């Protein structure tokens, strides 16, 4: 991103890289926690219903793997909050209560739910009733899911700020409606997509581990029964992720059309727009969207993007150039051009400067109604006041384009994969599986399942790349670009912590993987 300001460009880029590294690392643990929570909950439910110790041992085995991942993931998210306070202090101040409230609720709920129910889940076998233990296992998962909810509410607010008002005296956003913030439709669909995608990770992990046992011809009964549960959860979760992803796409079309245009490499919009199946977008450079009609070698699914974005096959979808130059919406209203938004942003900043100066000179608020009105009217485009060149508001298209295709492509592959695994375990159609027993296939079949574990993680992280790169340059959509949000730090200090994290995170990840592998190699402890 070109930066025309005096603030050290390295500080912005390294702070972004550091935040991305921490978030990507944190996101390695979260989806497995949410996903395995469902898998182990179902297994323990089988134990509760059958009273068969086989299910108890199976549930305990998956709980052990859940526990390792949970322990390794604890507190990795806290580092993001430190980074807010150090690297993104202007942003942290500006968001005010909006972040404070959901994150505080998250902290309290997570602490109480997790410290009680996780303890009962691990320490309570044979000490509490089976019903209470089962409830604790599900509540552990529910607690983690509720935590995710609050974090996603905070993230959704940055992407689509609602339920708040800017106070020029405190320089903070103040919450006017907690319900609007906590139940923002954008947050709801983000939550649904994120959580269902996390279940996929748990399912792929479960199926991959089971396939390893089948390949080694060990723990066959446990592997086959777990495989069934993993594949059912996986198939349901991928179908749900596709449906919720579709909804997430519609929301993006409404509130972040530039993100959608970048995801689709849609340079010029229109009606009856197709969804790009594939096109050549150079992964290493920003395309010449101003002069190219569309990305080269583009093959699309006719009308699909119009339908996805507007629920109408002939609906209008703006492209990057339309968004830069302004356009008339189907309802007749006009979306201002970036130049017009820049003017409005500048007005808001100038009014803020006048207001603050007047207040310092002791003038009462009542005499500053005009300044306040200008701020409120133009706050929506406040961040555009810092834009010097239209190109700054176009996100890096290659990352958005390819990350979106990796996520959706892997999603489609996983639907097929889970369906085949289910067909295998239930031997349907019987004729096909007569000679092929799923527990005695050539090894390469199992290797595919194991290889899908990292692939599913890549898809999941790609989802975040789309969500976060797609809203660049905004830390708060249309209100605060990265170069205003960042603290005036020396880039060298950020570089040091970046590499410190890289070493720390890599070590911890290696430790986690080695403990996990050791426990998988050891296998379940059977009670009899």
């Amino acid at each position: 991103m070109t930066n025309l300001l005096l603030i050290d460009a390295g500080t912005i880029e390294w702070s972004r890289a550091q935040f991305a590294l921490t978030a990507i690392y944190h996101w390695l643990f979260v989806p497995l926690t949410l996903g395995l929570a469902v898998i182990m909950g179902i297994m323990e439910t089988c134990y509760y219903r059958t009273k068969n110790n086989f299910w108890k041992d199976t549930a305990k085995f998956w709980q052990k793997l859940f526990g390792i991942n949970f322990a390794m993931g604890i507190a990795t998210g806290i580092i993001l909050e430190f980074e807010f306070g150090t690297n993104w202090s202007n942003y942290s101040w500006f968001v005010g209560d909006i972040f404070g409230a959901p994150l505080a609720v998250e902290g309290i709920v997570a602490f109480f739910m997790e410290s009680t129910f996780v303890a009962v889940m691990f320490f309570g076998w044979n000490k509490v009733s089976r019903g209470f233990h089962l409830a604790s296992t599900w509540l552990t998962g529910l607690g983690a899911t509720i935590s995710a909810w609050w974090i996603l509410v905070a993230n959704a607010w940055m992407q689509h700020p609602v339920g708040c008002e800017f106070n020029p005296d405190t320089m903070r956003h103040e919450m006017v409606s907690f319900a609007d913030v906590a139940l923002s439709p954008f947050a709801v669909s983000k939550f649904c997509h994120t959580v269902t995608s996390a279940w996929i990770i748990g399912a792929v992990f479960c199926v991959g581990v089971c396939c390893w046992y089948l390949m080694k011809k060990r723990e066959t009964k446990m592997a086959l029964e777990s495989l069934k549960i993993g594949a059912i959860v996986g198939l349901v979760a991928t179908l749900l992720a596709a449906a919720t992803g579709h909804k997430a796409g519609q929301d993006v079309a409404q509130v972040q059309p530039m993100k959608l245009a970048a995801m689709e490499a849609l340079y010029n919009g229109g009606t009856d727009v197709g969804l790009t199946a594939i096109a050549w977008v150079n992964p290493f450079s920003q395309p010449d969207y101003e002069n190219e009609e569309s990305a080269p070698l583009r093959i699309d699914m006719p009308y699909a993007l119009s339908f996805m974005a507007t629920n109408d096959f002939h609906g209008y979808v703006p492209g990057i150039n339309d968004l830069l130059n302004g356009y008339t919406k189907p309802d007749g209203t006009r979306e201002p051009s970036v130049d017009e938004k820049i003017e409005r942003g500048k007005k808001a900043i100038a009014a803020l400067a006048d207001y603050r100066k007047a207040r310092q000179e002791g003038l009462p608020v009542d005499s500053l109604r005009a300044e306040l009105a200008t701020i409120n009217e133009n706050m929506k485009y406040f961040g555009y006041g810092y834009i010097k060149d239209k190109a700054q508001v176009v996100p890096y298209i290659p990352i958005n384009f390819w990350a979106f295709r990796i996520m959706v492509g892997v999603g489609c592959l996983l639907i097929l994969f889970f369906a085949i695994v289910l067909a295998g375990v239930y031997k349907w159609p019987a004729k096909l599986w007569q000679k092929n027993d799923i527990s005695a296939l050539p090894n390469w079949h199992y290797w595919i399942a194991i290889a899908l574990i990292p692939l599913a993680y890549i898809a999941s992280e790609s989802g975040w790349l789309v969500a976060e790169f797609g809203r660049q340059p905004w830390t708060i959509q249309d209100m605060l670009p990265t170069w205003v949000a960042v603290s005036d730090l020396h880039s060298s200090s950020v570089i040091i912590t970046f590499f410190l994290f890289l070493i720390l995170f890599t070590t911890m990840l290696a430790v986690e993987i080695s403990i996990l592998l050791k426990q998988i190699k050891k296998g379940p402890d059977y009670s009899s």
Partner: protein
Amino acid sequence: MRKDSFIYRFFNLYYEGFKNMTLGRTLWAIIIIKLFVIFVILKVFFFPNFLKEHAKGNESAYVAGEFIERAEQ
């Protein structure tokens, strides 16, 4: 205290649980080292509260100054 009282059973769950941990010991050791690194080393030495250090108690004025100045640059 009666052994069937709720409080006894509640504390006993944690006491016995911690006492009989096997893999849990390693995990707790990792958690404690990690928390130490995060809260004592990283927070104290690498992640100071920027505004506390620079705004000297007047955060809103400092942030306003930054916002207005950066628009002029």
